[in-house]
Structure formats: structure tokens, C-alpha cells
């Protein structure tokens, strides 16, 4: 009983307390900082693991208290929140390991890791939020805790990117707050609930509910980088590699996508959202974003920028999946939340390795890097193939599930979008792979560093290898219990109520 209340609180507190301790540590205490970081990350994985097991058994974890008159603060673990919490806990550990290696010998590490933990605490809160109010609370906390990470370098470019980031996200937040407050005024405090609330509504409510839906999608779409609200994301690439990895794989863009999932499934209800004609509009926006992001990625010469536009495109797969309105298609969208996270974090880790080890930032400088850094390049190659959707990698599972889901409900045009997008993915990833493996190195590396006999620091090498392996495993065991796909199907069976 009490444990079921305390578990979600503990899961949130591990990173929150870690953040406070990390801020308090003196700048020089590197070893202690690393120990605290890793201990907190491992503890959190354990806590989330226990909750995942419990949720699978049908146990409930919930903590709630009244915060402001009429509004509750609710932390709750259900199948959907565990999907996101599991991803965030796992990738936090790997990104922490990576960041320790990446930031070796650089200043401001105390500040960096403090905000880093705060950022993970926010994602945890977003995952565990049991109503819109609590969700919003952590959604804004995420904005604030990521700003110092984006401007970490303190250069003019970083500060400009930070300013744009904050303008986009805070404006989005204000729009979202307006929508949440309005909805609250209309119908009161709504907890996330399977099947949503609006399956049979008064026709007079249709107008306001439609406007609120649009406002919510706009507010959440800023973080999910839906076109035309994606402008901040490619600029935010000036942040250090672990930050980009986290921003793109778990934290910011996923928070937006996860919020859209919550609103569609558990506030409006999939059925009601479709009947009100809301999903049709959303699917068009998502499809356009997929194509647009991939097309823009083609023209980028900077590796991280190309990956950024790829994120713009890939995150909208999740949104498009929701609009497919059948158990299979929806599961395809949900599972992409995890799959995209693992694949994209691999790619960003690798991009960071090239930059740190060889000083390479541009794609045309990558010629022959496969020979110099085979481990990193293998991981990158797997990630790229995963994005393209080659079997048996995780990305293939997503595209296959979504495609068959689309056909099942007669939305054939979605298959066309998936095919075009895959072709574009191939068009922007294959040239990179060609340069890595088949081109000859013609110029010396711009800024090379050596770490003994390994191709790069072990702290930097292992995380991408592990995530690449996870991506392979997620594809291979997709049908076993506790695989991302099975879990997504569990969510659909339990919570979506089709």
C-alpha cells in the first residue's frame, strides 16, 4: 500500500536529489560526481524496473495531493508512463557515462550535471504525471532545465540558439497553459483515463473542444518539432553532444510527442478525436513534417544538423501512428517512441565521437573514418540502417507495424508516406556510410586526439555500442514479452480502448 504510493515519488526523487547534491559539490570533485551520477542512474533503473514489473502484473502506483484548490498533483505509473520512464531511465545511464567522457577537462561540469539531472527529473515527472496540470508542471520545468545545457558553451552562437529555444518553448508553454486552463474551466480537473472523456459530448461543446485541441497540439508541437514549430531544433545543435543526444532521444522532443499521445488517448479518447475530425488534420501535419524534415536533411552538410532534421521527421512517425486509428498502427506509433530514442541517441553519440576524437563536424570530412574508428562507425551504420528501416533492426519493426496498421484501416496513403520517407532516409544516410567505409582519407583529421589503444575514450565508445546492440535486440525479440513492441501492444490493449 504505502510502497505503491512511494515508488513513483522515489523514482522522481532520485534524479531530483542527485541534482541538488551535484550542484552543491565543488567543481573539483570529479570522481565523487561521477559516482553519484552513476549510482543515481542505476538506482533509478532499478526503481523503474520494479514498477514495470508491477504494472505488468496489474499493480497500481499512485501518489496525489491537492496543490491549488481544485487541482491535484498526481504521480501515477501506468503502462504508457512506463514506456517513457523506462526509456528515459535507461538512456540517462548511458548518456551520463558518455557525458563524463565527453566533458573531461572542460569547465562548468558541476553546473552541467546538476541541470542534466534536473532535466531527467523533469522527463520522469512528465512520464509519471497523472493529469494535465502535473504534466504541464514538469513540461515547463524541462524547458528551464534544458536552457543552461543548450547555452553551456557560452559562445555567441550558443546564446543565440538558447534565446530562440526559449522563445519557442515558452510561447508554446503559454499556449498550452491557456488550453489546459480553458479545458479545466469547462470540465474540471481531468486525470488521464483510458478511453478519454469525450466519447459522447454535447454538440455545443464541439466548438470549444476543437479549438482547445488545436491549441494543445500547437503547445506540444513546439517541443515535438512539428512543422512549422521546428525552427529551434536545428539551432539547438550547438549544445554539447550528450545534450543533443538527450534532447533528441528522450527529453524535449519526446516530451512533446508523449504529451500528444496523452491528450489524444486519455483526455479526448481516440474514438472521439476521430469523430470530431481532429485526427485527420493532425495526420496531415505529421505526414508533411515527415517528408519536410527528411527533405531538409538531404541538404545539410553539417552532420549534427542533418541528424537534427532527421529527428524532426522521425518524431512525427509517433504522431502519425496515433492517427492510424487501429490497434496495430497505434502500437507502431507508440513503439517508435522507444525505437527512435535508441536509434537517434546512437547516431548522436557517434557524431559526438567523430567531433571529439577527430574534430570532424562536416559530412565531407568523414572520408575514411571507418578505418580509424571502426567501433563508432559500426554503431553509426547500424543506427543509419535502423532509421532507413532495414530488417531486422528496430526501425523496421516500426515501419512494418505502422504500414500494416495503415492498410488495415484503409489509409493507404500513409504507406506511400512511409515509403517516400524511407527513400529519403536512405538518400541522406547512405552517402555518409559510403564516405565512412569506402572513401579514402585524403586530408589529415582537423583536430585529432589519442586515447591509448582504443579508437577513442572508453567512456565515449561503449555507450553507442550498447545502444546499437539494444536496437538490434529490440528488433530481434520484438515478439517476446517486455520488448518495446509487446509493451506497446499491452498499452493499446489496456488503455486505448479501441
Amino acid at each position, binding site marked *: 500500500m504505502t510502497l505503491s504510493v512511494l515508488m513513483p515519488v522515489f523514482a522522481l526523487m532520485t534524479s531530483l536529489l542527485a541534482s541538488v547534491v551535484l*550542484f552543491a559539490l565543488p567543481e573539483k570533485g570529479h570522481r565523487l560526481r561521477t559516482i553519484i551520477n552513476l549510482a543515481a542512474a542505476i538506482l533509478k533503473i532499478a526503481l523503474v524496473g520494479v514498477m514495470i514489473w508491477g504494472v505488468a502484473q496489474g499493480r497500481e502506483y499512485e501518489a496525489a*495531493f*491537492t*496543490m*491549488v*484548490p*481544485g*487541482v491535484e*498533483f498526481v504521480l501515477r505509473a501506468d503502462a504508457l508512463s512506463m514506456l517513457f520512464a523506462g526509456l528515459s531511465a535507461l538512456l540517462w545511464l548511458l548518456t551520463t557515462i558518455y557525458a563524463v567522457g565527453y566533458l573531461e577537462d572542460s*569547465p*562548468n561540469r*558541476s*553546473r552541467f550535471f546538476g541541470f542534466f539531472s534536473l532535466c531527467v527529473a523533469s522527463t520522469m515527472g512528465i512520464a509519471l504525471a497523472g493529469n494535465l496540470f502535473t504534466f*504541464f*508542471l514538469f513540461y*515547463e*520545468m524541462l*524547458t*528551464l532545465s534544458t*536552457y*543552461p545545457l543548450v*547555452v553551456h*558553451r*557560452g*559562445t555567441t552562437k550558443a*546564446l543565440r540558439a*538558447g*534565446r530562440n529555444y*526559449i522563445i519557442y518553448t*515558452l*510561447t508554446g*508553454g*503559454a499556449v498550452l*497553459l*491557456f488550453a489546459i*486552463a*480553458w479545458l*479545466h*474551466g469547462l470540465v474540471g480537473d481531468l486525470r488521464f483515463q483510458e478511453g478519454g472523456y469525450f466519447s459522447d459530448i454535447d454538440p455545443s461543446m464541439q466548438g470549444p473542444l476543437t479549438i482547445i485541441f488545436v491549441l494543445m497540439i500547437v503547445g506540444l508541437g513546439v517541443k515535438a518539432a512539428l512543422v512549422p514549430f521546428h525552427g529551434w531544433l536545428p539551432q539547438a545543435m550547438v549544445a554539447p553532444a550528450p545534450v543533443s543526444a538527450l534532447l533528441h532521444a528522450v527529453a524535449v522532443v519526446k516530451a512533446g510527442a508523449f504529451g500528444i499521445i496523452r491528450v489524444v488517448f486519455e483526455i479526448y479518447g481516440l474514438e472521439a478525436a476521430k469523430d470530431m475530425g481532429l485526427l485527420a488534420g493532425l495526420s496531415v501535419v505529421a505526414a508533411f513534417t515527415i517528408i519536410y524534415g527528411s527533405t531538409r536533411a538531404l541538404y545539410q552538410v553539417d552532420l549534427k544538423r542533418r541528424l537534427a532534421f532527421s529527428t524532426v521527421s522521425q518524431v512525427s512517425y509517433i504522431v502519425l501512428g496515433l492517427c492510424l486509428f487501429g490497434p496495430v498502427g497505434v502500437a507502431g506509433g507508440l513503439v517508435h517512441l522507444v525505437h527512435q530514442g535508441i536509434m537517434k541517441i546512437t547516431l548522436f553519440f557517434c557524431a559526438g565521437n567523430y567531433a571529439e576524437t577527430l574534430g570532424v563536424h562536416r559530412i565531407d570530412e568523414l572520408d575514411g573514418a571507418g578505418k580509424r574508428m571502426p567501433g563508432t562507425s559500426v554503431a553509426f551504420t547500424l543506427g543509419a540502417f535502423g532509421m532507413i528501416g532495414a530488417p531486422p533492426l528496430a526501425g523496421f519493426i516500426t515501419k512494418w507495424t505502422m504500414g500494416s496498421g495503415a492498410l488495415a484501416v484503409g489509409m493507404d496513403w500513409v504507406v506511400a508516406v512511409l515509403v517516400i520517407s524511407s527513400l529519403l532516409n536512405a538518400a541522406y544516410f547512405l552517402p555518409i556510410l559510403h564516405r565512412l567505409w569506402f572513401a579514402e582519407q585524403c586530408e589529415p583529421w582537423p583536430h585529432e586526439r589519442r586515447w591509448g589503444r582504443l579508437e577513442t575514450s572508453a567512456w565515449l565508445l561503449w555507450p553507442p555500442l550498447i545502444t546499437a546492440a539494444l536496437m538490434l535486440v529490440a528488433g530481434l525479440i520484438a515478439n517476446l514479452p517486455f520488448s518495446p513492441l509487446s509493451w506497446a501492444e499491452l498499452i493499446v490493449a489496456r488503455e486505448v480502448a479501441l
Partner: protein
Amino acid sequence: MTLWLMAGLLFTPLAWAVLTLLLDFSKGRVVTWLGILVQVLVSLGLWAAVASDGGFLYLLGGWQAPLGIELRVDGLAVTFVLLTALVAAACGWHASIYLDPGKPWHRYFWPLFWFLWAGLNAVWLGGDLFNLYVGLELISLAAVGLVALGGQADALRAAIRYLMAALLGSLAYLLGVALIYGQFGTLSLAGVTELINSGDVQSGLTFPLILMLLGLALKTALFPMHGWLPPAHGIAKSPVSALLSALVVKASFYIAARLWLDLGGDLGGYALAQLIGVLGSLAVIWGSWLAFRQAKLKQVVAYSSVAQIGYLFLLFPLTWGVTDAISQQAQQGITLQVVSHALAKAAMFLAAGNLIMSVGSNRVDALAGVSRFLPFSLFSFGLAGVSLMGLPPTGGFAAKWLLLQASLASGQWWWLGVLLAGGLLSAAYVFRVYRASFIEATDTDQFYHPSRSLEVIPMILALMSLGLGLVAEPVLSVMSLPFEGASQ
């Protein structure tokens, strides 16, 4: 018991004011620490007493109004008493380390500080219009003196300007009081309300109400009468600025709010309520914009006060002609805004004082590198900023949420735009400071590091402002307690 506590809150500060007048700075400091301890304990005691037994109305000395002194305490009053105790304790503690004992005129800080505290408590606990006036004057004179303590010619000029505005405001208020007295023959707020409710309201009473509100709005620096505030708050010593922004402007607002809630329903009107709301909105927009444009750090914070005070005036339209539930919601939102702004702004001024002391310049540009070498003070400043922006989970957010709900429920949706735009505008000036601090200017630490206590005090205040949002419910439940009845 409650009466003794209330009397203690009024007379202890007066006694301490006289006592510290006789001592030099260092001795005054020790005596003050003791006094602060007493005041905080008594305030907590009163808060606990009201939380358990509800509010009271006392006629001090057994005299009936108009001659007697009427004291009343309810949830709202006791919340402000406790807030004053917390903020004043923090500012007094900070000042005792921050002020240079070597400057002879600094010894007057302590008596002025105590007179100010006495005046504030008199306003929170006063029940009749004339004693409220006395409290208000005590506050104004003490505050002007504190501003003048800055010492330079600029400080004196700002103090004189402040004095003029304060006197003019008091005059308008007093004139209104005199008209009310002429009409009703009583100065007790409760008495006037009773007479109005009994039915024989006479026309022409709206004028004295407007006159009083006008005077109080001038003292609260409502747009467009805010011109005196930024110079005074910007030039004063940081602990003084903190006291002025956090508490002093709230005193006149408190009286205006009490007047409005007791008399506004009958004497005010829709147009008047909306007009005040519009002026408040303009203050939010204009104040934030000017805060964004300031080159000096403390001026940014001072103009931010103009903007934040603007929100408070939404009380007027949101409580006029609406149901009790909506009015209650609006009152809770405004009170929460007062409390969270007081904590956050005090934290911000104290942190700004530390930062200025460390970098040796008042300019925002000079903050480059602060994020690397002075993270603690910057962090306090930042947390306070989060509350001012109204982002969760701070008290500022809880206040904004309640005001949004009240605006929606009363159908006055136009205030929603003000609330949301105001949040974004405040983000603009707060993030401008963050941005400056993140620039990496030097590789070596050339900053002066203030003592640990100086850094900790603003952090405590900022954390209280942050935590207020999480415990808003219990705080509001005490805040909303009405008077339980009268006793001698």
C-alpha cells in the same frame, strides 16, 4: 492570548525602534537580532492561533469607534503578518552583514527598519480608516528615510521624489477618509459596511472611495503613477530595496483591497473596476518592457516590480459583480501573488545586491562569467525569476492559475491575454540576465566572493517562493479564514 500577540506585534517594533535609536550600528545589530527572533515567534504564534480558532475583532481599551483603536485579525491579515516577519527577518539579517558599519549614517538603519515594521503590522491589523492612515504614514516616512540612507546625491533626489508622491497619496486618502467620516460618523471599516448594508446608502459616496483608491494607487505605484518607484527602489541599498518592493507597496495595496472588498460592491461600479484592471494590465506590459530595456541590474528588478504590481489590480474587476466562488478564487490568486512576489522580489534584490558587490558594477553586461564563478547567487536570482515568470511549481504559477480560472469563470476572458503575455514578457527580462551571466568572459575568477550567509539568505527566500506553489492549498485555507466575531 490573541490580543496579547497582536499588541506585541505592534509595540515590540516601536520599543525596538526607540531602543536602537540610542545605539550605534553594531550594538543596534545585536539588539535587532533579538527583536527579529521575538517578532518571528510572535507572528508564528498569531498565525497558529488564527489557523486553529479563526479571526478576531478587538476594540482596544474598550473604547468604541470612532475614538478607539480597532484591531482585527483574520486569515488574510495574519498571512501578511507572517510574510512581513519572514521577509523583514531576512532583510534585517542581510543588512546586518551587508551594510558597512564604518559609515556613521548607517546606524539610523535600525530605528527606521523597526518603525517600518511597526507601521506594516499596524496596517495589516488595523480595523479603522484613521489608524490605517497612521500606519501608512509611518511606513512612508520610514521608507523615505531608508532610501535616503543610500548617501549619494542621487539617493537623496530619489528619496525626495518618493516623499512627494507618498505625501500626495496620503493626502488624497485622508481627504476620502474625512468625507466618509462626515457621512457616516464612524471610521471603522466594519461600521461603515454595516451602515451601507442597512440600506441608507446615499449617493455621492463613490467620490470618496475613488479619492481613497487614487491615493493608495499612487502609493502602490500603479501605472501611470509609477514614476517615483524605479529610481527609489533602484538606488536604495539592496536590503532596503527588498523591503520596499516586497512589503511597502503591498501595504497601500492591502488597504485598497480591503476597501474594495468591503465597500466596492456597493460604491464601485463595473466601469471603475474595469478601468483599474486596464491600468493594471498596462502596468504589466509597460513595466516589463521597461525592465527589458534597462542597462542596470537593479533597475531591471525595480521595473519588474511595476509590472508585477500590475497583476494585483486585476483583483478589482475579478471581484466586482461576480459570484462569491469566483470572487474567492480571485482573492486567493491575488493574495498568493502578493506573497510569492514578496518572497521572490526580496530574494531577487538581495541576490542582485550580492552580484553587484561581487562584480563591482551595476550593469547587466558586467555579469559575464558569473555563471561559472558565482553560481550560488545567480541560482537564487534565477529561482526567484522563475516565480516572477509564473512558471510551475512556484507560488507565482499557482497565483496565475487561480487568476486564469477566475477570469474564465467570470467571462472576462480578456485578462487571460494579460496573464499569459505578462509571463512571457517577464521571461524576456529575466532571461536577459541569465544570458549575460552565461557568457564566458574570463578564464580566471576575478570576482569578490561575498560571505556564505549573504548568499544563503536570498536562496532561502527564493526556495520559499518556489515551495509556495506546492503547499498553496494549506496556505490558502488559512488565508481565507474570515473574522469569527467581535470581542472586547
